[in-house]
């Protein structure tokens, strides 16, 4: 008996941003610098943005679907000088202020590790009471909080809790360690993991609600972030996926974590698509929470240029892959690009594996892909720190390979980059920045016909873990769903 494969599609995608200037001090770079020189905390504090500024910030607006990333190309730079006010909810998600996010953190905390000051709890409760995605049961989990004196005691002493602050320095609570003798359960590690969980939960709830998907119909969740959830005997044990599923009412689901540095999400989409294609599951969610460690990563460059610290947002994503519904963009699993072991360290070999080989398999040319979504880090964050313009560099390499293969001329390279690429706009939140920030716009464009094909092209810096000198990469081709239209099926 032969069985045909199911055609997987991207059924929906949503994002979540939390504006957390008070947490910038706990980013990896800021926290190490502050430990060496306490005066850095003041310098950082003086360059933190308001919520209104973060809401209005054009790259954040592109991330949440208010504007298309291409629009950024014609906006005057620096983008952070833009005066046009923004709004909280975009087409693809919201940006939440830190006062509320600390409440969500507490709501997601099932071990009473987050201790909030009693007065702040009431403020958070009032602010969150009208949130469309939080229930009375959620707000119950805020509890009543602690007297300020107790918080002060917990933040002092020989094994202090980690104080939690708002932007202007008001301490609103603290984060406990879960074990005195376990580095994997230290307060800073737990804070990183809990913010990851909370942000992913909000992205997932946004997706389920706005796409009117029944949480009970979801059987499997793949979490694809770079956090390490575990304890001293199993430091990367993981399965934050199931914790996220639990908080989203997905009672019929379990899940697992897909780990691949920044390439995690695209690997996870591949696995999700394959499970749907093989009819193992009718739909699979792919989620990715935030990267607290990356807050303020390039802050020194921003201070040097006396500009606001732009890495003050935590970012998360949630995606549903389901069986063909006739309208959602198709995942062309037969055209996967893989940076194999043999491809090694040669950019030419790597991009041949990721771009030209999958396209060749479908009889397509480089120019047949309307938009490539690569590493989409906001250059306004990276350039002041001397780290260049990562998206532009990647698009130039794709264009360069196209020229080497004589599909375009060298003179046509800049136009290729402008047409088939886009300005970077994503927060530098690790795996979140790798291809998936464009997915919301991609799904919109592929549904309404503005786009025919989009290639997601992600990379992972495996060498950072010191187990291999290699990097990794994965590409995925999305195509407009031809069913129900007069278009011919592509080969």
């Amino acid at each position: 008996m032969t069985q045909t494969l199911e055609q997987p599609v991207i059924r929906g995608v949503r994002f979540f941003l939390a504006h957390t200037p008070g947490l910038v001090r706990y980013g990896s770079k800021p926290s190490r610098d502050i430990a060496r020189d306490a005066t850095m905390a003041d310098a950082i504090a003086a360059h933190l943005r308001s919520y209104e500024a973060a809401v209005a910030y054009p790259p954040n607006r592109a991330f949440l679907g208010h504007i298309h990333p291409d629009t950024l190309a014609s906006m005057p730079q620096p983008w952070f000088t833009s005066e046009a006010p923004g709004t909280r909810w975009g087409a693809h998600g919201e940006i939440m202020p830190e006062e509320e996010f600390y409440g969500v953190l507490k709501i997601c905390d099932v071990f009473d590790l987050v201790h909030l000051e009693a007065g702040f709890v009431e403020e958070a409760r009032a602010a969150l009471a009208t949130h469309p995605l939080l229930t009375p049961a959620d707000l119950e989990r805020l509890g009543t909080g602690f007297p300020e004196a107790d918080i002060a005691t917990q933040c002092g002493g020989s094994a202090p809790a980690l104080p939690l602050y708002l932007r202007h320095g008001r301490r609103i609570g603290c984060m406990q360690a879960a074990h005195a003798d376990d580095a994997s359960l230290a307060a800073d590690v737990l804070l990183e993991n809990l913010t990851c969980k909370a942000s992913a939960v909000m992205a997932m709830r946004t997706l389920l609600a706005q796409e009117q998907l029944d949480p009970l119909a979801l059987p499997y969740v793949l979490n694809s972030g770079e956090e390490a959830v575990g304890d001293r005997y199993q430091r990367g044990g993981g399965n934050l996926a199931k914790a996220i599923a639990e908080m989203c009412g997905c009672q019929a689901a379990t899940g697992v974590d897909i780990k691949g540095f920044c390439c995690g999400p695209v690997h996870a989409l591949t696995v999700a698509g394959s499970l749907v294609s093989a009819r193992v599951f009718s739909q699979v969610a792919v989620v990715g929470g935030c990267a607290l460690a990356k807050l303020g990563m390039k802050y020194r460059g921003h201070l040097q240029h006396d500009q606001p610290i732009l890495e003050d947002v935590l970012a998360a994503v949630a995606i549903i892959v389901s069986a063909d519904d006739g309208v959602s963009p198709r995942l062309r699993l037969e055209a996967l690009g893989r940076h194999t072991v043999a491809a090694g360290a040669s950019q030419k070999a790597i991009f041949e594996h990721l771009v030209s080989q999958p396209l060749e398999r479908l009889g397509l040319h480089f120019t047949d892909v309307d938009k490539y979504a690569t590493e989409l880090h906001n250059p306004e964050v990276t350039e002041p720190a001397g780290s260049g313009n990562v998206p532009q560099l990647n698009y130039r390499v794709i264009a360069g390979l196209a020229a080497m293969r004589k599909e375009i001329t060298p003179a046509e390279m800049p136009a290729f980059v402008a047409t088939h690429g886009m300005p970077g706009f994503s927060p530098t939140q690790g795996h979140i920045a790798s291809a998936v920030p464009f997915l919301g716009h991609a799904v919109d464009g592929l549904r309404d016909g503005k786009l025919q094909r989009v290639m997601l092209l992600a990379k992972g810096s495996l060498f950072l873990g010191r187990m291999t000198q290699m990097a990794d990469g994965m590409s995925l081709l999305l195509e407009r769903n031809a069913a129900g239209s007069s278009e011919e099926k592509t080969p």
Partner: protein
Amino acid sequence: MKLQGKKVIALGERDGVQGGALAACAQSAGAEVVLETTYCFV
């Protein structure tokens, strides 16, 4: 400057020329690569 017979430290970048690529170049010129690294800044 002759690479032949020299000991080389290869400092690559993931989105530039990676460590392994630098090492291959140095070795083809007769150098010995004593340290190979690739950096990533995002």
